[in-house]
């Protein structure tokens, strides 16, 4: 095992641990702001995973859009609607156990699928350096093969923007 791959594995473990731990903390925290922060760290961990997968452009997009944009919006709204009382309310509903069982079933199902179907989708070691230069490749893909979905996505954003403005505006 070379030094490179040791570092690679170490980075993967590190980012995966950050992601999972913060995801768990996010779901369990009582304070919504703390939850949001742990979601941010989870997203940053995911961004690290992207970087480790040689998807640099996606790493930047993840941080700029997700962490720097969407989560700021979340925090903004949390600060606007944060109620003192909500800290003392019950945080989980009655579906707790149902949900847990469901989740376990879901997990088991997926695991089974991975184990059984692993041979079908050939979990080999991924090739390295095939997606460089990443930004250029993604750009070319978006503006050639995926032109229509890209335009649709921008229309979706426009619609969402108008919708959000109308919903949030007090008096129109």
């Amino acid at each position, binding site marked *: 095992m070379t030094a490179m791959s040791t570092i690679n594995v170490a980075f993967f473990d590190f980012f995966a641990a950050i992601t999972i731990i913060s995801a768990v903390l996010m779901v369990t925290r009582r304070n919504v*702001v703390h939850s949001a922060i742990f979601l941010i760290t989870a997203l940053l961990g995911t961004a690290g995973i992207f970087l480790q997968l040689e998807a640099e452009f996606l790493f930047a997009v993840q941080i700029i859009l997700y962490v720097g944009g969407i989560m700021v919006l979340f925090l903004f709204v949390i*600060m*606007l*609607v*944060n*109620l*003192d009382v909500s800290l003392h309310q019950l945080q989980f509903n009655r579906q707790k156990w149902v949900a847990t069982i469901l989740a376990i079933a879901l997990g088991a199902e997926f695991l089974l699928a991975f184990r059984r179907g692993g041979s079908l989708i050939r979990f080999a070691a991924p090739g390295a350096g095939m997606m460089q230069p990443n930004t250029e490749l993604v750009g070319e893909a978006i503006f050639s093969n995926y032109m229509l979905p890209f335009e649709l996505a921008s229309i979706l954003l426009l619609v969402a923007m108008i919708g959000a403005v109308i919903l949030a505006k007090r008096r129109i």
Partner: protein
Amino acid sequence: MDERSIHGMSGAGTTVLGADEIILNMGPQHPSTHGVLRVKLKLDGERVVGTECIIGYLHRGVEKIAEHRSYQQFAPYVDRMDYVAAVSNGLGYCEAVEKLLGAEAPPRARVVRTILTELQRIASHLLWLGTHALDIGALTPVFYCFREREEILKIFEKYCGARLTTHAFRIGGLQYETYDGFEAETKRFCDDFAHKIDEYETLLTENRIWVERTKGVGILSAEDAIALSVTGPVLRASGVKWDIRKAMPYAAYDQYEFEIPTRENGDTYDRYLVRMEEMRQSRHICLQAIENIPSGPIMGKVGKVLKPPPGEVYHAIEAPKGELGYYIISDGTTQPYRLRVRPPSFINLQAFDSMARGGLVADVVAIIGTIDIVLGEVDR
């Protein structure tokens, strides 16, 4: 007011949007409430939906003190009301007592009083301009303003030994003769000051941000201004041509030519322009007065012990901030039976609510600045 939002803090605590309104407590320790004014703002987001001024943090009972001091002893106290325009305060008080006594200051004293008072008006307006600009975020004008104000304070210091609380005037005239070079120094200051004002105006008057921040902010209509008995530059910026120096001349003002600057819109920008023009007019008055100061005594004959005849008198002057009136009741003893001050700051502050309502938080700061209050005078 909503008790919960007053006591509950924001941030990690309660809601901002929940009740749709938050209470923001500005002051008494806030960098731009000009001392110890406390303003309770009811905010909807950044918009002001209600205000409440809470005053009294600097109350010293000046009016009550007057009842236990002889007329001369009380004179230094008035300096501590509007402490950035002490000379004007002293002028109003001395003239009120002189009116009560039926005495009059000699012509020379009256002219020197006029010069010093007009210099004080410039100094007061300079301080206002500097701090007002600072409130709106312009960091630099305040230093230029203080540079010029320093020159005026130097003249005061040379004249009577004090810079801020001068106690420059005495009942019946002046205690000190003017020093050698008083005329020359005042003239030099006035000559320099002409383009200094132009310099300030180049920094601010045409500045886009300044205009945007002040135009249409804190509008006070002429009717409202009169109804709220607002006086001084605030009133004149609303278009009412009322200046006691012209309407009921005192000191030596009837001898000089000067304009009463007025504007129509009654917004913060107009008040700024009015005060700038007033500084020019004050300079003009000073220059006229300095040309021929009559010779003669500077102290009238009023005697050592002042016992005004029983009666009452109201005398008002045009202080830098507006009408400064003294209402004195004498019972024939050496001490006033009752003394009441009509402070311009206190009464102008009443207009704050109607000006600030509907504005933004940043406008509140601009409006507190534009009314030009001094808390020593509001609270007395």
